[in-house]
Structure formats: C-alpha cells, structure tokens
C-alpha cells in the first residue's frame, strides 16, 4: 500500500461501481412501472366516465325523475333527480348520526379510555366493524327494522345502515388524528388552568380538525357510493321524495338498476349517474378542504 494516494486514485475510489449503477436503474424502473400500472385503471375509469357519462348529461337529466319507461328505444326515460336528492338526503342523515358519535368515541378512546381494557375492547370491535361487508349492515337493518317491525322500506332505514357503515371509518380516522396531537399541547393548556373538557374543545379538536375532515370525507364518500345497504332498506323508487319515512331513490341503486337494463339509453343513464356521483364527491372534497383550511386560523 502506498503511503499517499494520488488524486487519480481518489477519483477511482469514489466512482460508483457499475453493479450499483445497474441495481439503481432496475430499482428506479421497477418503482416507476408500479406507479404507472396503478395509474392505468385510474385513468381508464376517469376516461370512460367522462366519455360515456358526459354524453347523457343535459339540463333535463338533472331536473327530471326517472320515468321507468325503458321500452321503445329508450325515448323519454327521464333523468336522475330523485337519485341525486335521495343520496344527498340519506347520506346527510347518516353523517349527522355517524360523525358526532364517531368523533365522540374517538375522543373518549384517546383522551379518557387510553389503554384500559374497555378501550382496547372497543378498538377491537371497531376494527372488526371496519371489515364487515356493507351488505351485512343492510341485512342487519332489514332484519331489525323491516322484518322485525313488520314495516316497509324507508329512507331513514337506509341512512341508519349507511351510518353503521360510516361509524368505524370515522372512529378509526379520528382516533389516528387525535393521537397525533402532541401531548405537550394538552399539557400546556392544562397547566394554564383549563378544565379537561375545555382543553378538548378549544385546543385538541380545533388542532385535529383538518385531519378529521379528511377522515369524515372518506366515510361520506364510501357511504355515498354504497348500493348494498340501501337495496333492501331504502329500496328503489322513481319519485323525488323529501320524506325520509318513505321509499327513497339513490345514485348507487339507480346505477345498479339502470346498468342491468337491455336498453342502451338506460345503460347510458347509469354512466351519467356514475359521473354525477364522482363529481359530487369531488366537490364535497374541495369544499371541505377549503373550510378546513380557513378554520385553521379562525
């Protein structure tokens, strides 16, 4: 070994070896390929939705109820007004039930229950609920509120099924966000002489709000797109209905009904309804994000 390296030796020693260059290329290529692969269905969905859905959009598409007339080449089949309003009504009621309860459970788990056995039991069952297929929630409401009471289908029963579906999503996402709030914030508020409930309402919840909004949106988006819990709880109807005690149409059920129709115009209406649903969820996302951003510094 020579006592001193010449500058040339140094350059060679710091060269990236060809083998490592190759491995780096392969790894980068692999990751890029996986990303593109994942994007393909996403892009295709958006493409087909726009291509097939946009063509059926018109003013009357949004302002008329479906007529149920699917014969004669699909002339005068009507629009999806009742489905849009039904989805909004039922999801709004479901959110009004699931969001406060879900955030309440999450606050209890993080601020009070912590790692007691009861809190851990609650967490376990919430996890189980997250994995329950949506049709089970529909079935549960069907058996309890329709067969059990001998009454008929109703919009609020659909809402209840949807709220059961939303609840574990809201609890889990809110709990994760609440856990991220630094303990130092709670401590400094407590050290100022704030009672615990004020610390939760004035410090913890406002700080967690933007994150919780995202979780709530995920739950709402999931509920808005569900067909199975509504099929035998809210059923299907053509008319626009503002009474949650009656039968209620919804976008997913409308899509489900239309897409199985032999008439092309009706199948196209399903595409239009699907595009509407996606746009509605997108808008909801944007609005909620704006609200969350603004309330960060109220």
């Amino acid at each position, binding site marked *: 070994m020579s006592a001193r390296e010449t500058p040339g030796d140094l350059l060679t020693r710091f060269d990236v070896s060809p083998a490592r260059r190759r491995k780096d290329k392969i790894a980068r290529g692999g990751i890029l390929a996986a990303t593109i692969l994942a994007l393909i269905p996403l892009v295709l969905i958006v493409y087909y939705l726009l291509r097939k859905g946009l063509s059926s959009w018109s003013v009357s598409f949004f302002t008329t109820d479906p007529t149920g007339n699917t014969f004669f080449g699909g002339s005068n089949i009507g629009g999806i007004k009742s489905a849009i309003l039904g989805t909004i009504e039922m999801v709004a009621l479901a959110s009004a039930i699931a969001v406060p309860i879900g955030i309440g459970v999450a606050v209890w788990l993080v601020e009070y229950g*912590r790692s007691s056995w009861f809190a851990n039991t609650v967490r376990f069952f919430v996890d189980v609920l997250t994995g329950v297929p949506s049709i089970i929630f529909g079935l549960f409401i069907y058996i309890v509120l329709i067969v059990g009471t001998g009454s008929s289908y109703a919009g609020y029963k659909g809402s209840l099924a949807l709220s059961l579906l939303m609840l574990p999503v809201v609890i889990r996402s809110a709990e994760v966000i609440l856990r991220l709030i630094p303990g130092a914030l709670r*401590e400094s508020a407590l050290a100022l*002489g*704030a009672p615990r409930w004020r610390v939760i309402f004035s410090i913890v919840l406002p700080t967690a709000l933007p994150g919780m909004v995202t979780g709530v949106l995920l739950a709402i988006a999931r509920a808005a797109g569900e067909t199975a819990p509504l099929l035998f709880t809210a059923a299907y109807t053509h008319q626009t209905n503002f009474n949650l005690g009656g039968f209620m149409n919804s976008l997913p059920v409308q899509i489900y009904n239309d897409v199985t129709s032999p008439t092309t115009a009706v199948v196209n209406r399903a595409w239009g309804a699907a595009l509407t649903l996606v746009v509605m969820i997108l808008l909801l996302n944007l609005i909620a994000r704006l609200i969350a951003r603004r309330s960060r510094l109220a």
Partner: protein
Amino acid sequence: MTSDGSTLRTADVEPDDLLESGQARSPEPRPARPPATAPAASSATATKPGLSVRLEGLRAFYGESEQVKGVDLDFRANEVTAIIGPSGCGKSTMVRCINRMHEEIPGARAEGRVLLDELDVYDSSVDVVAVRRAIGMVFQKPNPFPTMSIFDNVASGLRLSSRGRGDLHGKVEAALRGAGLWDEVSDRLQEPGAGLSGGQQQRLCIARSLAVNPEVILMDEPCSALDPIATLKIEELIAELKQSVTIVIVTHNMQQAARVADRTAFMLGGKLVEVGPTQEIFTNPTDPRTEEYVTGKFG
C-alpha cells in the same frame, strides 16, 4: 438543607381562593379584596407579590418506580430558585408535582405535601384547576397553540378558564409587555403564534402563563431549545418577573443557574442533596457530591 425564614406574609391572594366554592374552608363568605389591589389584577407586571412554596416529604411515582424520594424544600416568595442535577435525577418530576401536572401521566402519583403559602395543593378539597391557575408552567419546548393567533395564544388561558370577559385586550397587552414581547409583536397580533422565532415563541408561552396572573411560575428547562441570544432575553426576563412571581427553574445549564437564581438546589437520584444561596452552592458547597457536580466531575 435549610428551611429557614420561609417568608410567609399576607399576600393579596388568599390561599382560600384556591378552594372550590362549595367547599370553602371558612364558613363566612370570602372577604372582598382590598380596593388597592384591584388595578394590580389587570396587569400581570404590577408588583403583586408571589407566594412561597414548600415541599414536605414529597415522593413521586411512575407506576411502581419512585422518581422523587422524599424531598423537603422551600421556594421563597419572589425569589428565583434553580434546580440542578444530572439527567433523570427527578428535577422535572418534582417540579411537575408542584402544580399537580405529574398526575396527568397515566399511572403517575405523588405523596407528601406541597404547600402554596399555607395551603396544601394536594388537599382533597382543593380544585386542581385553581392550583394550575395560581402556579403557571413554561415547558422545555416552546409550544404555542398552533391554531391560534399571537393574541389568542395569550388570551387562551383566560378564555379556557372562562375569564375571557373584561378588558381582554388590556390583559393581553400587559402579559406581552411582561414577557418583553409587546414591542416585537404589537403590530401583528392576529398572525399565527407558530410563525414567531423559537425565542419569541417561548416568550409568547411565558406571556400566556402570565396572563392568568399566577403567583408562581415553574420553568422546566425553558431555554434548552433556544440559541444564546434568545436565552439571554429569557434570563433577563426572569430577573424582572421575580418582582411579581416566585420562580422555580429547572436547568441543565449551571452557568444559567448561577446567572439567574437567588438560591440553587442540587438533586441526585431523586433526593435533594443540598440547597442554599446560589453563590454558596457554586463556590463553597457543603456536600462533596455537589462540589463534584458543579465542578464538572460528573453529570
């Protein structure tokens, strides 16, 4: 260990103020404050005396492990007492027992007595929320509330304890002046508190605790996350604040203790080794362990 001359005197805030209204110790209604002190209440920097704190046989536990093993210690009113000692010696735990923040940690508990003036803050009739209003706390890392503006951060203590009425703006200004921050932020009170520099954030946190008008402020290594210039500002502030509050400061920095503290306590392994005038602790300690620590032989 000295427990001499714990200057108990008539402060304008009676310890009875800390009792929950339903469980007042004396049957007669609380005497009205003398009118002379009324203006003092509106200003955090007015010369309202602090209160003394005395620990008697204080022991603190995390589950089964005992972190503070029977400490007797006096914090004299309107003096700065520094607590020094190696990491893990129980300094912070002991200080957190004074305003009962220790018990917020699951499984943690404290035994013994903590006397604020003459009131045992661990007495069952004492409202823990009132204790924390009287004994403020500043933490190691500056932690302004991220959702709040500078103004709201300072006002938060008042609002959170439902005392946000009255001259809120005046109280916030007084607290910011008291923390030496007013001139730097007076033109941008509505900007987020998290946008300030680290040193400003820490002074904002001091202003936040001053706003509720405490008699004692506990500082748990308040400068350990700050640069030397910001540290200097906090130290100058401490010297001013002791006119109106009693200050207990935990520090890893022995020079800082020498600079700011009237008295210094040295802790080791959960026990108090020695307490005395700062000058004496650093130049002529009685315990050989203190001497070894302050001369840098360990720790």
